[in-house]
């Protein structure tokens, strides 16, 4: 529900409507809305499934609109509160809270001045008057402190209690006693007590707790900044081309298939594919990768990324909730709504905490009254109030979720999407990471690395005199491989194209699975394939050539021979190149004590060669795709906590089987579904960053929990007076309220410190 205020009374709001299918649905719903008293205008959009309604807030409410739509058989969604609206409402609540803090603390200080033993001598007589103190304390107790009662009464009806119950109880005891002293001092004197009221305790405690709550709310809003930032990335309009004219449309009205123009410096509105032009695009807001990416015709672009240099036209392929940004927001929201297993203990303690504190307060009162020094009643009362005030269940409740919110938010900013809090916690315990080789450790695009001439080419020139021998061999190889669909063939053809070689037409092309290919050119038979193909066709390969082949294979390369008329002319070595960041990333993971494994379908010699270059600890070679899952399970049986890093689509079963599945370089639904952590960029350092983020977040959570538990476990007994028999130390209720207020703030602030952590 998005709001746009026009005047004080007339407002424009956008509501989602469910069940719209056709133009007739639009007419029916629009008519129903327009007929509703107070509605000035209503426009229903089929594409966006939204209604924009202008109405008079005095005569019409969203509920009435929902009722009108309900009668037509459709559903108007009222609940879709936008973040802007939510934050506006929060701001208002905060402002009110601050007013209450100012009044409470202002009045509290005046009462304190008039009642504190030494200070009171300097105070004007009126401040020392108990009735005047009562006059100041009453609005604080029942206006500023209203929210404590407001929460306590219905909670008691449900037979539940929270921190408000404790504050309401504690301050009410102090207030009622003080009021009694004010009106009936002689009764107190007859009991042998000094007739001093404690209005300052009630009022300052309320003021300080409200102040703590104000800072806590401010700090808490910082923990959800990541979502706000992500939502803020969304472009507002799109320049759609219609009938050769550009029309600026609100983003909600962009449909799949729309042709959109993007100019330099503009945000790309939705996801799509470039159909004309080229540009450099800053995708850092989505992938965390700071270097702009060059994109041209056929490349995909992501909504909310920034077009840097060129103008291009593209076709929208994903809009609304389908865009990558929307998916990321959904994922982060879900992660922030999930609960980490470490929180279970805090949850159990929280659910018993308040009743237990109330029981301890009764115990404190009884023990101090029966065994305490004189005046026993005052000691009993003040210590009971201190127990009620110092207990802080909020810190326990905030310890884990605030850190999870900040942690998942930081992840999203770096292109690391964490599925839920449990994944974040498990990632901290990982001690083995299995990397898929192709496309994860390597670029996944084989390239020609070596071309070795074995025999002279003079007898086989295809054009002109004095040919370049290497080029001629490559040209022959590419000509024959052009008909092949093998990935190695693709790399040979690509290399020839890079060198701008003109390919010849090969006749009688034939692929021989497991060996290579053959074909005819200029009435000569050409063979291209492995050593087995050569031997099968009687091509002589001498021992030096075999050694060369072995040496290349030891380097992790695949070797193919080319022969013409049973004579080996040359050999081509092809290798999938290792990603630039792979070695550094693996080294930093090993430094963290994590065992690195590589899983691949390659033969052992090639796999070992690549593993050696990267410093991989263990190689799982010749593993077919459907066996990867089993390999993961074997490691788990051996007691390892395993993370699997793959592309998220082909490796889905292995990713799901691992304790933590990390999908790389993809924001697709399939990858997000299968993986616990999705890395939007293809940088392997993000794996290290994800593990580091998990460790740092867990450290913050543990610190928060230690603080929250430690605070209550230590200070509640102190408030009960456990130190009094040994050191004569008692805790003033005012100090208790300072400690309580600062306890929650400390936890939230500690979580916010995570933002300063460098994970990359």
């Amino acid at each position: 529900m998005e709001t746009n205020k026009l005047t004080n009374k007339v407002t424009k709001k956008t509501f989602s409507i469910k069940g719209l299918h056709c133009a007739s649905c639009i007419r029916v719903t629009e008519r129903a809305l327009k007929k509703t008293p107070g509605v000035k205008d209503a426009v229903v959009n089929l594409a966006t499934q939204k209604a924009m309604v202008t109405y008079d807030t005095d005569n019409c409410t969203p509920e009435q609109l929902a009722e009108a739509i309900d009668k037509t058989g459709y559903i108007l969604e009222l609940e879709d509160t936008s973040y802007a609206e939510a934050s506006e409402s929060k701001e208002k609540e905060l402002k009110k809270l601050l007013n209450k803090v100012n009044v409470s603390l202002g009045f509290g200080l005046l009462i304190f001045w008039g009642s504190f033993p030494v200070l009171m001598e300097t105070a004007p007589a009126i401040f020392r008057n108990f009735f005047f103190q009562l006059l100041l304390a009453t609005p604080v107790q029942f206006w500023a402190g209203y929210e404590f009662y407001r929460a306590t009464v219905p909670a008691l009806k449900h037979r539940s209690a929270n921190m408000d119950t404790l504050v309401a109880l504690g301050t009410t005891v102090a207030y009622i006693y003080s009021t009694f002293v004010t009106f009936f001092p002689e009764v107190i004197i007859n009991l042998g007590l000094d007739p001093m009221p404690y209005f300052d305790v009630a009022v300052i405690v309320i003021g300080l707790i409200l102040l703590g709550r104000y800072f806590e709310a401010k700090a808490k809003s910082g923990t959800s900044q990541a979502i706000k930032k992500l939502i803020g990335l969304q472009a507002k309009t799109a320049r759609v081309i219609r009938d050769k004219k550009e029309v600026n449309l609100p983003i909600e009205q962009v449909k799949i298939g729309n042709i959109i123009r993007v100019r330099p410096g503009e945000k790309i509105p939705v996801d799509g594919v470039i159909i004309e032009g080229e540009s450099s695009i800053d995708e850092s807001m989505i992938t965390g990768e700071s270097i702009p990416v060059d994109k041209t015709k056929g490349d995909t672009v992501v909504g909310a990324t920034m077009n840097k240099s060129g103008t291009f036209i593209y076709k929208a392929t994903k809009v609304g909730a389908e865009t990558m940004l929307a998916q990321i927001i959904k994922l982060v929201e879900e992660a922030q709504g999930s609960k980490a297993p470490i929180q279970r203990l805090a949850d159990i303690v929280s659910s018993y905490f308040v009743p237990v504190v109330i029981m301890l307060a009764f115990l404190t009162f009884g023990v101090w009254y029966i065994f305490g020094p004189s005046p026993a009643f005052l000691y009993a009362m003040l210590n009971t109030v201190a127990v009620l005030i110092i207990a802080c269940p909020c810190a326990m409740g905030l310890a884990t979720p605030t850190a999870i919110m900040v942690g998942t938010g930081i992840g999203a900013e770096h292109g690391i999407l964490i599925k839920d809090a449990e994944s974040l916690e498990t990632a901290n315990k990982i001690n083995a990471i299995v990397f898929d080789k192709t496309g994860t450790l390597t670029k996944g695009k084989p390239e020609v690395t070596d071309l070795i001439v074995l025999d002279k080419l003079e007898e086989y020139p295809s054009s002109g005199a004095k040919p370049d021998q290497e080029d001629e061999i490559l040209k022959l190889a590419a000509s024959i491989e052009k008909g092949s669909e093998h990935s190695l063939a693709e790399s040979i053809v690509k290399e020839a194209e890079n060198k701008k070689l003109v390919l010849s037409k090969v006749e009688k092309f034939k692929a021989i699975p497991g060996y290579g290919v053959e074909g005819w050119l200029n009435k000569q038979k050409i063979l291209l394939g492995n050593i087995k193909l050569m031997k099968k066709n009687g091509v002589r390969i001498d021992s030096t050539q075999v050694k060369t082949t072995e040496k290349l294979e030891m380097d992790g390369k695949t070797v193919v021979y080319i022969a013409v008329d049973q004579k080996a002319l040359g050999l081509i070595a092809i290798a999938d190149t290792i990603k630039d960041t792979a070695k550094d990333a693996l080294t930093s993971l090993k430094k963290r004590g994590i065992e690195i494994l590589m899983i691949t379908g390659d033969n052992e010699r090639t796999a070992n060669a690549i593993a050696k270059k990267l410093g991989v600890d263990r190689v799982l070679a010749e593993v077919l795709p459907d066996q990867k899952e089993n390999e993961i399970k074997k490691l788990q049986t051996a007691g390892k906590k395993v993370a699997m890093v793959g592309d998220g689509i082909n490796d889905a079963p292995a990713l799901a089987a691992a304790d933590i599945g990390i999908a790389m370089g993809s924001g697709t639904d399939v990858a997000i579904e299968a993986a616990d952590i999705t890395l939007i960029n293809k940088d392997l350092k993000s794996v290290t960053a994800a593990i580091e983020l998990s460790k740092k977040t867990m450290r913050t959570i543990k610190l928060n929990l230690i603080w929250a538990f430690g605070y209550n476990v230590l200070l509640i007994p102190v408030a009960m007076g456990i130190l009094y028999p040994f050191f004569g130390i008692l805790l003033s209720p005012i100090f208790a309220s300072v400690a309580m207020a600062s306890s929650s703030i400390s936890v939230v602030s500690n979580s916010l410190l995570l933002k300063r952590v460098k994970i990359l």
Partner: protein
Amino acid sequence: MDKILVGLFSIVGMVFTYWFFLMKKEEVVSVQDSMDSSGSPQVDIFVDGGYSPDTISIPLGKTTKINFFRKDQSTCLEEVVISDFKIRKYLPLNQKVSVDIIPKNKGSFNFSCGMGMFHGKLIVK
């Protein structure tokens, strides 16, 4: 004499507190009794000093709409967390906030306020 009375008062207070807060009976509300206009089960939960109702029975595999109405100003209740369904929602004061839930497993799933002070339960049957 007064000491004995205060001692008794303390003990009775503790026992009463235990009974009052920790021994309350669970009243289950079934969503099957209420459907929205599309025929999906739905339930309205008032957030006011806790959740009312706080224990709801919902059907397995069906989309159930849970409408939260926060009437309580306490910041403690400004968020609702249904962690098993990965839901954390801000509840603006006096506004309806709906969440759709499709339970895939039978069992009991807790929900709570953002700080874990107030609790409710979804029982999937």
